[in-house]
């Protein structure tokens, strides 16, 4: 095997591309395509969130808020103000970036559980505002969203979305891998390792944390907007605390500080409830039990545990 293919970067990207290209062979009908698209969209959120939690070591229990703002911002601009979808998506994402930047500076000075609480509070506030501003958002009943139009063509159908989301997922992975291997990405990992040591070699910790916080919010908002256009309908549930938890769980399940882990985590935990749906009433019980058992027996998460098993000695 050529050396380049063995690096997480090239080899992993190629493997992911192959999976995306070949998966349709196994997708029997539109329902499966639908699940695959949702996996891709969640994976994009998780890749961003993993930069924050896995690499920089800063927890957020409020990212569903950013996801929800991206979704509702895009939907409202398109449905209520008649903006073109792409412009709405861009504006909503930029708006979320601005918000994350504004709140990030004060909040990211907090540590550990205090940061967890602050981000959680932020998420709760966003979710309540979305629920209550029913003039704009349709309130708890949700709102319908026009389809995404690309160059005059409406993007509809699970199959078309599959390829778009697949391409965007690859792009997201590529961006994240690039960042992690840049000086800025090293600075983030350094903060996680020892904040004091990072600062005394010249890293402005607050600035770096705000940067990655904004970046992860942008990933979430962008995927949120896409999800709104794809589903054609959104409800405030997408912005609430439980969804934030779901996102963090995906990241941790897949493996902290592993970009491909984030993808795997999103895939498993998006698919699992669909599989469990046959269990109907037992769904929550099984889901909760799976979460607990994986964390007890694979605390490092899925991908790092597997890599450690099959490539002992090699890291990452």
């Amino acid at each position, binding site marked *: 095997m050529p050396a380049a293919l063995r690096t997480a970067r090239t080899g992993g990207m190629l493997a992911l591309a192959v999976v995306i290209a070949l998966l349709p062979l196994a997708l029997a009908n539109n329902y499966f395509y639908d699940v695959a698209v949702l996996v891709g969209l969640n994976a994009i959120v998780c890749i961003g969130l993993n930069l924050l939690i896995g690499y920089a070591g800063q927890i957020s229990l409020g990212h569903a808020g950013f996801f929800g703002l991206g979704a509702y911002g895009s939907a409202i601009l398109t449905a209520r103000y008649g903006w073109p979808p792409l412009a709405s998506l861009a504006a909503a994402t930029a708006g979320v970036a601005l918000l994350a930047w504004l709140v990030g500076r004060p909040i990211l000075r907090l540590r550990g559980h205090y940061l967890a609480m602050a981000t959680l509070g932020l998420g709760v506030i966003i979710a309540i505002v979305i629920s209550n501003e029913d003039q704009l958002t349709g309130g708890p009943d949700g709102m319908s969203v026009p389809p995404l139009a690309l160059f005059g063509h409406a993007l509809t159908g699970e199959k078309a979305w599959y390829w778009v989301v697949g391409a965007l997922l690859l792009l997201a992975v590529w*961006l994240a891998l*690039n*960042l992690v*291997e*840049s*000086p*800025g*990405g*090293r*600075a983030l*990992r*350094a903060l*996680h*390792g*020892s904040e*004091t*040591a*990072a*600062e*005394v*070699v*010249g*890293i*402005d*910790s607050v600035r770096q944390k705000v*940067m990655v916080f904004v*970046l992860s919010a942008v990933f979430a908002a962008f995927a949120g907007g896409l999800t709104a256009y794809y589903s054609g309908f959104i409800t405030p549930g997408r912005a609430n605390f439980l969804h934030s938890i779901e996102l963090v769980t995906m990241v941790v399940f897949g493996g902290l*500080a592993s970009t491909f882990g984030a993808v795997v985590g999103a895939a498993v935990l998006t698919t699992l409830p669909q599989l469990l749906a046959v269990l109907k009433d037992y769904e929550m019980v099984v889901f909760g039990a799976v979460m607990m058992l994986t964390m007890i027996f694979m605390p490092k998460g899925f991908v790092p545990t597997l890599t450690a098993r099959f490539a002992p000695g090699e*890291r990452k």
Partner: protein
Amino acid sequence: MSLLRVEALSKEFGGVHAVQALQFEIPAQGVYSIIGPNGAGKTTLLNLLTGVYRPSAGRIWFDDKELTGRAPHHYAAAGVGRTFQNLQIFFNMSALENVMVGRYLHERCGLVAALLRFPSLARAERACRAEALQLLEFVGLAGYARAASDSMPYGALKRLEIARALAARPRLLLLDEPAAGLNPTETQEIVRLIERLAARGITTVLVEHNMKLVMGVSDHVLVLDYGRKLAEGSAESVRRDPKVIEAYLGSEAQAHA
């Protein structure tokens, strides 16, 4: 001309005066040592001189620029580097990456360039890697470049911290007990390393317990006791100072007896 100047510097922790009204200047050349019994306030002083702690009172100038109250990264940017008594290694990275982080100040690149991996960045990364390797070699850790830092022995980690600090190209390097916990051979290597630093034109501040080591390499010694300056001067004059003998060397001698 002095490189670093401190005026009436104090640090208090809820009633404990760890550093009290210190006044001194560190000249732009040579090895400046800070000694004193355990708990004398040496580490606290280094934390103050790197912005890790904010002084309760007093002022700090580096190169005639006042840095009092600024965050650690401002001190680093001004040219102050350090190591830690309690190791602060980035254990989630390889040895080489630890040193590469040290190059951060000279490697700044925009977010967009990083995300899109501009070719210029790839080139800079190669240069950064090469320089980090050289530094590992300089401190005698060439063999550990690819090692995961959490698998390295203690003595190697001490030198890894020095390499990381050097990567930032500091003008003033503060070493907090670099030989603590090392065997005589390793200590000898550290001494040689300190001498080579001086040859590189880096001013070194050495906090150390090992008196032989201090007296051998220091151009200037500052003695602390209970956060206060007890004596200051050349190694020779400090060694003869009765106050120092009583407070520090005396107790040391007792401890060895």
